[in-house]
């Protein structure tokens, strides 16, 4: 995966990234809980056509600011939180591939669950990202969250 800005990556996110993150943070002996979310591109059927891939575009220079604000807000609310990772794809992500990863590390499970859920919702509301669903017949449609 090629990093564009700290939160954006070209192409799909590999499932192995979760294992890499756990390995990375397991050395932190204050950590007691991990919670993560992976968003996968569905092969939706729209009016008889099936989705083949989603092409994501982003306002790259604005993403870093929004991500920073989301993290700041959550670290203010959840004092148990140790780390929050947000990764979003840009470019083509095919059905069955992962386009969003949120990973929360905290001392106890409750705040890891909550921080992970809230981050996913905030990413969907606030990340300047757009998705174009491309169908098997080569037509496309811009989608809203």
């Amino acid at each position: 995966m090629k990093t564009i800005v700290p939160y954006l990556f070209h192409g799909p996110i590999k499932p192995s990234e979760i294992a890499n993150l756990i390995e990375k943070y397991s050395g932190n002996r204050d950590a007691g809980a991990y919670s993560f979310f992976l968003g996968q591109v569905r092969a939706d059927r729209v009016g008889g056509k099936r989705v083949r891939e989603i092409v994501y575009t982003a306002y790259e220079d604005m993403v870093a600011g929004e991500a920073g604000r989301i993290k700041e807000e959550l670290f203010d609310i959840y004092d148990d939180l140790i780390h929050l990772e947000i990764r979003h794809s840009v470019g083509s992500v095919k059905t069955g591939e992962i386009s969003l990863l949120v990973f929360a590390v905290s001392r106890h499970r409750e705040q890891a669950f909550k921080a992970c859920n809230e981050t996913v919702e905030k990413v969907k509301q606030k990340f300047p990202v757009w998705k174009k669903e491309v169908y098997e017949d080569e037509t496309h449609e811009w989608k809203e969250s």
Partner: protein
Amino acid sequence: MKIEVLFFGVLTEVSKVDKLVIHDVKNLEGLMNELNIRYPDLQKYTFQISVNREIIHKNKSFKDGDEVAFLPPFAGG
């Protein structure tokens, strides 16, 4: 004075470009007048506007080099 205008998502299909440079518009109202002439279909779409990556909600004066972006509803995830 010049400003840079960016289009995203479905709006790139209206403007046919991702980016353009516009000279001698003093404020957002002036820019909208100019763009509505160039791209009459722009009015059919819902979007927010940011100036230098901050979303704005009312008319704003521009300074040289400002980056104005037209942002359709976000669709991350």
